[in-house]
């Protein structure tokens, strides 16, 4: 897991103090969650506990609010979000092999993110690019006509580009 930097939790606490003492203090919960997500990229348990303590709201309630809204990520998301198309055409053309390769290469399951926070693996319905099946989408870009070797090459490229910054 990634570290939750104490400074960031401090910054979150600091952010909350601006609302302290104002009427309807708890109503700022969503603004605080936005801040937490801006700091961490998602809403870690530690942040929710910090908010609970600083705002005197049960963590369970905060969790309830956070899960209601699509905008909040409850798990960290990697720099590259990989969606593997499992539509019929891709399936026929070997999407399963592509998915297996990705799982092995990244050592994660679908829905998970690598510990270095580079990759998140997802499944997708048909991406509409059957002509170049099997395809994957990385962030907003489609890569097609893949096989195991090409997938590994792609991942290595991404790693390299991330290392360069």
């Amino acid at each position, binding site marked *: 897991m990634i570290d939750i930097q104490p400074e960031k939790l401090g910054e979150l606490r600091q952010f909350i103090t601006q609302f302290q003492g104002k009427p309807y203090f708890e109503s700022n919960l969503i603004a605080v969650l936005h801040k937490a997500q801006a700091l961490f990229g998602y809403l870690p348990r530690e942040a929710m506990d910090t908010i609970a303590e600083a705002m005197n709201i049960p963590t369970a309630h905060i969790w309830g609010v956070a899960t209601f809204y699509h905008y*909040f990520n409850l798990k960290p998301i990697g720099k590259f979000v990989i969606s593997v198309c499992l539509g019929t*055409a891709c399936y*026929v*053309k070997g999407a399963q092999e592509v998915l297996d390769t990705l799982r092995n290469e990244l050592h994660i399951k679908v829905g998970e993110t690598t510990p270095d926070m580079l990759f998140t693996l997802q499944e997708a319905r048909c991406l509409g690019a059957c*002509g170049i*099946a099997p395809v994957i989408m990385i962030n907003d870009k489609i890569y097609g006509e893949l096989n195991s070797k090409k997938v590994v090459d792609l991942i290595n490229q991404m790693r390299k580009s991330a290392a360069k910054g």
Partner: protein
Amino acid sequence: MEKYVITLCDGTTCIQKKSREIRTALEAEIQKAGIADRVAIHLSGCLGMCAKGPIVIVNPGYSMYGNVTINDVPEIVQEHLIKGRPIARLTIDEDHLYNRFFRVFGDADFFGKQMRITLRNCGIIDPENIDDYLALRGYEALAKVLTDMTPQKVVETVKKSGLRGRGGAGFPTGVKWELTAKEPGPEKYVICNADEGDPGAFMDRSAIEGDPHTVIEGMIIGGFAIGSNKGIIYIRAEYPLAIKRLEKALADARKNGMLGDKILGSDFSFDIEIRLGAGAFVCGEETALIHSIEGARGMPRPRPPFPAQSGLFNKPTLINNVETWANIPVIILDGADWFSSIGTATSKGTKVFALAGKIKNTGLVEVPMGTTLREIVFNVGGGIPNGKKFKAVQTGGPSGGCLPEKYLETQIDYESLAAAGSIMGSGGMIVIDEDSCMVNMARFFLEFTQDESCGRCTPCREGTKRMLEILTRISEGQGQPGDIEKLERLGNMIKKSSLCGLGQSAPNPVLSTIKNFREEYEEHIHQHKCRAGVCTSLLTFEILDSCVGCGACKKVCPSEAISGKRKEKHAIDPQKCIHCGQCFMACKFGAIRKG
């Protein structure tokens, strides 16, 4: 220092009325004042306002002065060019605010049928510069309200204007204001609903991005009218530019004394805060929105009590849509009588639509109520591209319906659209041509509402899911006899028994397409046919004799269903074909038939 451009009409009548002498005097006066480096003088052709000549126009701000004499010149230079204060005495003011639009963009076809009231400043002013807004009579309505009007009078004016809510439901705005004003204070709230969640709708975003002060001015006037000191703009987090412009506009308004304590020296105090949404469509519904501002899950609750009685923090709350607010300053300045002269018997003023789909001029348009759908689609919108045939127009997004050709003469107003089987909605308008499948269209919207159903009430949570299952199987060729009737039964039940507007309107796209395009549903179910060629599982592909054997289709086929030698006619194995349509797209000779 502000730079100015002065335009002098150099038409025959104005010259006769000494415009050239005025020009010489202006140049001399400008030299004398030492501001020649920031004032440019232009001449224009005849403006056609000869009766009021000579005409002098000062930009930015488009102050149009008429009947100018040489004696006025020192005042123009001292007051306007040096102190930045346009001269009311000389201003030609008979035109209404909305007309300013045409001066900049001309009377092109696209604009000719439009009437820009709420978007009057969009594209004209710099939205991040309060001076631009002020120059176009910005905050003048606020000043008028604070100095010349009582709260009752403001409520009366809005009531008399006939303005109705632009957020979808069309509730009379003045009545809502009156109800909220009557409730005991002092703690009351004013909310601007900027949660705009309909797919394809971007009216409110553009309005805020283009002219944030209008919305703010409307809200301050609303606060004054109902006796509230606190406003909140609830806006989607997905609109960063609009949020940034609002923040800047609020700060500038505070600096200039339009927000805060004792606004413009009056006894009235009011301030506005921004609250962000977090990506939940249902939060556009007013009671859900209020829960969201309170920091809770954005779930709706039954009404009554209405927000007017018990809204935010259980206090009386006035909630209106962005576009509704943007109408207020104009109604105050140009008057309720003028406003109610526009539109139809029951719907006054204009409506902004986001035109999208199979239409040439996609974009935002603002038209007077009473404009027909045909005028919007074929005049303002420029008609259907690529010579395709019009099939339907969808209004009201996921809460609305699809209207076929025979309804094109329908006038835009709340009642006529409802009578035709759709709704005004918040302003999404999607044009559909012969290439679109109505079953698929209905499915698209239902998929959206199904996903966004908050899960609180059973009819919406479970009912929409069952409807979606039925629609999905119909579009996959698994439809069963009786499915259409089942959809109708379920749909009507969900409409009647859901808790909030989301469920109450979610079946509309399905019910209206069944009503107007029943034969398409029947074809899908009984003949496994999609006439638009959209539902791919229902399509069969066949290679025609015109095939030259180039092999392009064979190459793209993902399931290796196509065989054939080079330069010979190829064939598709229906057993292996997965209906993806790639071969159809790859063929350069039109030798593949889909149907």
